């Protein structure tokens, strides 16, 4: 179990840029290299604060226990963080100039403090449209009980 360390994350997205797959090298169906991370109450609270999620269900245990959720949960959109937390500096989603075109996500089990989340990510598809290079990625996040947390698909326009 690796507790996600927000303070030592590599923020220079130019590092390892030459090791990342370009559009030409992306093989649909190929798995991305991922690693599980554990989300603490503090990580969830920092994410919530950073994206302006101020409902106390995300940080106040006493309040959260009174809700139908029975305790603190993470904001559903925390997969935005997990996409980077669970991948390496060589992952092509970090390539400078990666432009997000759209996303769809489904939510199943809420993430709770102490959960260890595993990401399975693939490049599902790639295509050229209106002279632009697109990749489609598909992700499944599961918790330590093997339960599906959320699944999602997105399209990015790849830098040339």
């Amino acid at each position, binding site marked *: 179990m690796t507790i996600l360390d927000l303070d030592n994350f590599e923020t220079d997205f130019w590092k390892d840029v030459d090791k990342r797959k370009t559009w030409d090298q992306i093989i649909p169906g190929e798995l991305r290299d991922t690693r599980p991370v554990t989300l603490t109450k503090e990580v969830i609270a920092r994410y919530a604060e950073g*994206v302006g999620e101020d*409902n106390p269900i995300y940080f106040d245990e006493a309040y959260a226990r009174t809700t139908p959720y029975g*305790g603190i949960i993470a904001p559903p959109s925390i997969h935005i963080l997990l996409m980077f937390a669970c991948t390496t500096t060589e992952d092509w989603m970090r390539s400078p100039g990666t432009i997000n075109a759209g996303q769809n996500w489904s939510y199943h089990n809420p993430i709770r403090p102490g959960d260890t989340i595993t990401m399975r990510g693939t490049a599902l598809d790639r295509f050229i449209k209106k002279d632009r290079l697109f990749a489609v990625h598909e992700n499944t996040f599961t918790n330590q009980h093997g339960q599906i947390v959320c699944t999602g698909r997105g399209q990015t326009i790849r830098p040339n």
Partner: protein
Amino acid sequence: MTAQLQFDQIQTGEVITGRPFTVTRESIQAFADASLDYNPLHFDDKYMENTFGKTSFDGVIMHGMQNFALISRTLTDWLLPKGGFHRRLETRWLKPVQLGHTITTKATLTQKKQTDKGFWVQFDIEVTNHLGGLVAAGNAMAEFLDVIPGKPE
């Protein structure tokens, strides 16, 4: 209250307006620190003078996923007090959002649907900028259910 009763109180046609959000360098930094997305598209003025294939921008742009998080918050702000569970969000980003722009989410409750096991509601999503331009569009689903999946014993 049971999920059935909560569901029965929901009215289609309701329009939910999110909190307006203004993009600043500070808001971009805060979102990057929360999401760990440090793409230079959001920080580097010099880099943004490039063209990106067929696309060029007038300066740094807001993270697309900032928009996703704001839509998500608009939905959960409304759903959580009513007992609704946010189940799905689909978005398309139509226009870049730049420094100084103010964007607002509008979710319209379009349909209610009872399935064999669930009580579902559907939303149409639009995000507009301060000039009235549509920057994102999409749809969402929520469910009313008696027990939240994974609730502790």
